[in-house]
């Protein structure tokens, strides 16, 4: 049938129990039989009733299509009885004395059963095709999410919802197994208001799909939770679950978790439910693997940046503790020597003075190198004092506003410092700006930096400038950088850095 059913419509579809459905079918069929009988009574004087007996097939066929062959046979019998009572003499009795009438009724019943069966098969084929196309559409939707590399949690939620709707479930949940033998709900869906727990650890201490999958092999079913004890069974009974079906999620040869669908009605899941679940687990696995490799890539970038920073910091320390202190001591010694030179040796005094001056210049150069390697004030005083020291040395006037006095993890402070440092350097070297504005503020666990200049603009972050290095540094910390630099209209660099480091867990 190829149509795409919206979630709400699908959610409404399974509202009545099988018995209710059957009864409503019986009622509708009986009313229709009565209507056809009325029509026959009207035309009976003009057209012989036996010729019209087949009109009852108009009722039997739709009943077979909508309610199945069982009810169609019942309605065919009701039709035969109505016909016998109304039109076969003796009238108004179920007695049949005329053998031709009996033959006509038998032929009608046989035809009704055959037509009913054909109609019921048509109905099944249509249903299967609709289910298949629904399944394909659901898989496509999830596959699109996976291909877009959205966060794994988003894929989990989509899969849980699609699985729930597709399997005609009332509730569905995806659970991840933990190393301590428990499981954590990572996503859940429900047709009604009652939800299964997400984010909490579930002990596998009683009958449950999670436990059966964990200690079993392949897909599993729990056909009744009646009288069951244990964390998940208790939860199932509380929300009214009668039966569940689940499928393992295996990532890289390891049992990662389980996806489970549950029903509140007595009607059990169809036999092919497990294979439907299995077709989704492949997509789940891809999403988890994608998230894993992304997390590994992020972690590896962060390690590269952290290792480089650590090397620079160590170099700065070595310089500070070694060469710088030695040269300073030497400068002091030379000044002492200068003081002891007798006044009648002015040339020697002057020579020594020159050496002292040269040493001072060398020390100043060392200070600059050391500052470039790792600004000592950043470790000592944090971002505010660090940035103020930075802008004091800028050749272009910088208007700095720091709206946070907090200390942040060293990688965040270093990244923020280098963003401003690189941006101000670029402005000085290339932008021809007369004024730079730098703002630093914190919003909801994110440090926001903005560097804005009134220069020539046209900065191209892709042209191997220092901006590429900044992007690496910022993204390695899970942050984002945006550069707006229209030609002739200044440059704005905006950076957001998460203050808390993310754990890098795929869920």
């Amino acid at each position: 049938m190829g149509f795409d059913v919206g979630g709400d419509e699908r959610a409404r579809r399974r509202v009545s129990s099988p018995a209710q459905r059957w009864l409503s079918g019986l009622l509708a069929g009986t009313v229709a039989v009565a209507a056809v009988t009325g029509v026959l009574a009207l035309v009976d004087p003009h057209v012989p009733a036996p010729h019209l007996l087949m009109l009852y097939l108009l009722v039997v066929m739709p009943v077979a299509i909508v309610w199945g062959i069982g009810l169609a046979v019942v309605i065919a019998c009701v039709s035969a009885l109505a016909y016998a009572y109304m039109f076969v003499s003796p009238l108004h009795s179920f007695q049949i004395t005329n053998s031709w009438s009996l033959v006509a009724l038998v032929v009608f019943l046989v035809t009704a059963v055959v037509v009913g069966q054909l109609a019921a098969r048509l109905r099944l084929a249509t249903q299967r095709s609709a289910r298949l196309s629904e399944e394909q559409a659901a898989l496509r939707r999830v596959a699109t999410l996976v291909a877009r590399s959205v966060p794994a949690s988003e894929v989990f939620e989509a899969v849980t919802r699609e699985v729930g709707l597709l399997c005609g479930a009332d509730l569905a949940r995806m659970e991840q197994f933990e190393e301590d033998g428990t499981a954590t709900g990572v996503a859940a869906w429900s047709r009604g208001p009652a939800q299964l727990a997400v984010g909490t650890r579930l002990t596998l201490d009683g009958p449950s799909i999670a436990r059966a999958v964990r200690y079993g092999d392949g897909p599993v079913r729990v056909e009744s939770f009646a009288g069951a004890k244990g964390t998940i069974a208790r939860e199932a009974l509380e929300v009214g679950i009668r039966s569940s079906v689940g499928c393992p999620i295996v990532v890289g040869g390891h049992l990662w978790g389980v996806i489970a669908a549950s029903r509140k009605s007595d009607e059990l899941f169809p036999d092919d439910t497990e294979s439907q679940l299995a077709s989704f687990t492949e997509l789940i696995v891809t999403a988890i693997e994608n998230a894993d490799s992304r997390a590994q890539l992020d972690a590896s970038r962060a390690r590269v940046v952290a290792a480089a920073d650590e090397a620079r910091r160590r170099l700065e320390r070595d310089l500070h503790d070694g060469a710088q202190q030695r040269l300073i001591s030497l400068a002091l010694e030379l000044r002492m020597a200068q003081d002891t030179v007798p006044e009648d040796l002015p040339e020697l005094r002057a020579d020594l003075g020159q050496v002292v001056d040269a040493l001072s210049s060398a020390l100043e150069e060392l200070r600059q190198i050391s500052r470039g390697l790792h600004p000592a004030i950043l470790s000592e005083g944090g971002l505010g004092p660090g940035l103020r020291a930075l802008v004091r040395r800028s050749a272009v006037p910088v208007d700095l506003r720091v709206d946070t006095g907090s200390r942040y993890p060293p990688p965040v402070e270093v990244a923020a410092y280098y963003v401003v440092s690189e941006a101000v350097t670029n402005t000085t070297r290339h932008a021809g700006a007369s004024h730079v504005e730098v703002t630093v503020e914190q919003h909801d666990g994110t440090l926001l930096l903005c560097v804005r200049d009134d220069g020539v603009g046209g900065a191209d972050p892709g042209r191997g400038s220092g901006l590429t290095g900044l992007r690496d540094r910022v993204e390695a910390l899970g942050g984002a950088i945006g550069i707006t630099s229209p030609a002739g209209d200044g440059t704005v660099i905006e950076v957001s850095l998460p203050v808390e480091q993310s754990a890098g867990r795929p869920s």
Partner: protein
Amino acid sequence: MVQCLIVDDNPHFTAAARRLLERQGITVAGVASTGEEALRRADELRPDVMLVDIDLGGESGLELAGRLHHQEDLGTRIILISSHAEEDYRDLIAASPAVGFLPKDTLSARAIHDMLASSAGEAPG
């Protein structure tokens, strides 16, 4: 004579500074290489002035200056020193109880006397 205590974790520097200052007329009563040692020796020696390195290895000289300032009846004034330039630390120096800052390579008795003189009249750090 002005009594001085040098707090620095680099022995080359403390040795050179001690000789220079003593030759220029300042008594170096002692040296300390850690914050704890500095607090103890300050209490013991009651120097007129302490030269405190901002970067004390793993410790912060600025923090030590704050602790010394809160030590009652010490009467010692603090001059921060560093191998870095003053402008690198300007905000932190201004916020500290120290009477001033001297880059290590410009250290001299005269610089110390000038700094003490210019801070005279103010409450001792």
